[in-house]
């Protein structure tokens, strides 16, 4: 008899767990009451403070924390303070998943700001999708994702390349060499680049991928010397960027004749490799530290005042900053009892603000962001000189390379 009762109990517990996960609305409604109860809004901040990507991610953590402090100093959101729960996922996807669960299930945060690499975003995605929470992702990435639980504030391929590639073809020529790190981001960027090049009648003389963390580029550079491409299109990431630029310079190649055009080299990488190695190469991004606008001057000053005068801001830390402000604007529209992740998502659709890079807007359809792509050339002082800004802000189209697919409010549509 007792055994039966125990099995019954276990069964009920299991069934209860199923019910809770099966009907997210009930689940979220319950916890939302706790969320707004004490006049505090809990958000997660999930950037690695230790491990291989810690250097970049620490700057993202700093930009996020600074934005939260700014908002709280100005009285919070409708009188409620934002309380950041900061976790260190240690550059490890499994730890990212564990910490994301803690933030979503344990701390019951209404949103989480986090991730630099795609691998870590993919690792945390299941918990946000199953618990219908919201993840703010600041990094430029390869596109081709259509999650209703992620707000993407970084650039997708069409935003970085639509202006950049034609400009380079016109300025330098039609023989291109593509070099990237061996993972999905460079492959996707190159897929799109090749499409653009085909439309412009340009040719790809070589396409090569090196392992992540690769630092020996002599064979790659030999290939450059024999192919003599007009443009080297680089989607190499991380420490490899530094090695590639240094060896390029050491082998005496000339950026005037054979420039590298990159989507991933920011002020951060330039600082690591030294301005001399970077000088003369091009980067396309929505934000550069030298961008001259009152909002950016304010942002850079505040950042340096808060974290140190030697610190740089870059095209991933800027979205970290403005996405918190967009979050604030969205939450402001909600009554305290309505502050739940799905409501924040609905409220943030179409939300606009003047960010340091210019006016940005969250696209209603795909939760990506309208941005202002710019073309910059690196200088030996470690900064960029902005040569061109797009005439208008650019719509994010995460599936631009795939005409039969479109990301809509109802999810991915195929025609």
């Amino acid at each position, binding site marked *: 008899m007792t055994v039966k009762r125990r099995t019954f109990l276990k069964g009920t517990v299991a069934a209860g767990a199923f019910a809770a*996960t099966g009907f997210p609305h009930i689940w979220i409604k319950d916890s939302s009451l706790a969320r707004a109860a004490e006049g505090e809004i809990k958000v997660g901040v999930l950037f690695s403070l230790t491990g291989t990507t810690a250097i970049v991610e620490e700057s993202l953590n700093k930009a996020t924390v600074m934005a939260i402090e700014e908002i709280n100093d100005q009285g919070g959101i409708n009188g409620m303070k934002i309380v950041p729960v900061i976790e260190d996922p240690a550059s490890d996807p499994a730890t990212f998943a564990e910490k994301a669960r803690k933030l979503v299930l344990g701390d019951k945060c209404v949103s989480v700001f986090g991730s630099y690499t795609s691998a870590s975003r993919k690792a945390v995605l299941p918990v946000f999708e199953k618990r219908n929470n919201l993840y703010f992702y600041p990094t430029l990435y390869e596109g081709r994702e259509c999650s209703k639980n992620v707000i993407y504030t970084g650039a997708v391929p069409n935003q970085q390349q639509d202006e950049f590639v034609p400009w380079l073809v016109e300025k330098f020529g039609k023989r291109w060499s593509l070099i990237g790190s061996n993972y999905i981001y460079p492959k996707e960027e190159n897929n799109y680049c090749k499409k653009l090049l085909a439309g412009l009648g340009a040719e790809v003389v070589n396409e090569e991928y090196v392992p992540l963390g690769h630092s020996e580029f002599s064979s790659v550079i030999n290939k450059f010397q024999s192919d003599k491409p007009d443009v080297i299109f680089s989607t190499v990431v991380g420490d490899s960027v530094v090695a590639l630029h240094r060896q390029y310079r050491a082998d005496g190649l000339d950026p005037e004749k054979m420039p590298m055009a990159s989507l991933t080299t920011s002020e951060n990488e330039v600082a690591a490799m030294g301005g001399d190695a970077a000088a003369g190469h091009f980067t396309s991004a929505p934000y550069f530290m030298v961008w001259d606008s009152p909002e950016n001057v304010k942002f850079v000053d505040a950042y340096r005042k808060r974290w140190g005068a030697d610190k740089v801001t870059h095209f991933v830390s800027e979205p970290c900053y403005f996405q918190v402000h967009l979050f604030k604007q969205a939450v402001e529209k909600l009554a305290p009892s309505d502050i739940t992740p799905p409501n924040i998502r609905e409220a943030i659709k179409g939300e606009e603000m003047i960010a340091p890079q210019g006016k940005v807007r969250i696209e209603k359809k795909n939760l990506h962001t309208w941005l202002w792509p710019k073309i910059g050339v690196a200088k030996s002082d470690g900064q960029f000189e902005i040569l061109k800004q797009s005439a208008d802000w650019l719509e994010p189209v995460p599936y631009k390379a795939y005409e039969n697919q479109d990301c809509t409010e109802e999810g991915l549509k195929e025609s």
Partner: protein
Amino acid sequence: MSRRTAVQIAVYGIVCLAILLVPTFYDDAFVLNKYSRYLVLGILAIALSLSWGYTGILNLGQATSFGLGSYCMAMGLKLRTVPVHTGSAGLPDFMVWNNVDKLPWFWEPFNSMTFAIFAGIAVPVIFAVLLGWFIFRGRVTGVYVAIITLAVLVVVNLLIIDQQRFTGGFNGITDLAQLEIFGLTFDAYGSSSYYLIAVSLTFSLFFALAITKSKAGLILQAIRDQENRVRYFGYDVATFKMFSFAVSAGIAGLAGMLYTIVMEFASPTFLGVPLSLAIVIWCAVGGRQSLLGAMLGAIVVTGMQGALSESETFLDTWTLIMGFLFVVVVLFLPKGLAGAAEMLLDRIWPSAGNGNGRANKSTSRNTLPRKTEPAE
């Protein structure tokens, strides 16, 4: 001897029972999910304890088996996903992204979940037997075993990252379906997965215990302490080592499969050097010559890592504190926490200590042959 075993079985049983009862006290999705993860790593530590603690094979590549198991499960679950990012072709999304237009032949059998689960254990075991064949038939011992296993781990890891058309590369295999067996769905946040893992843990623990208590287990321990003497007795040392190596790989493969269920993805970091070395640390902290000690070592260390890095006070210093603790344990508790517990038990209750002191027994086992060695 039999009384000692009985006490040991009782202790193991009580711990397993306690683990099985956790969900009746905590019905919180996050807590259960977190504990499930620690338990899976506990299984992994049992696997290493069997090969390192009981056979003396320092396998620095234990994560190879773990990762292979994890990928087998992920492949099975991936093919069950509603292809949200791909459309109707049924190809995993990352293959479409890499312009693969047909499911590769070695993915085909994973359409059957039974095969995937079978493969999750069989693939690591076969891999270990092949590797063990070369290592142990070649009479490679000591530090060279550690180097070879570590190198193999790195090779497999690089291969998986490089072959992203078939493995998802650096991002791993993500966006998985939930495991369903006999109409039961194993939700990563529910007690169902927790029970699955707790039962697997109990099974692995007692299976490993049974091996160490068997005659073969005795020979394994003899090999650990005096390999040459066992060989002179006429035992086929290489076969015994391969056996231990393979069983250990099978248990690690099982742990890998369960890890995929808990984490909801498979990643090349599951076969990473950091994880593989962490397993050695867990065993060292818990006590490698005790299956239970190693398991608890894994749970305690990962639990502490989680707790320390979550607390605001230690956010900047938690890695330092963990490192300091490891140094302290290795310096002052060479037999780990299990050894310390037994020493303590001996002090408090000497008669019982003599009866069931595993540490005592293995010490005598360790020291006796050494004492007589010069005489030979």
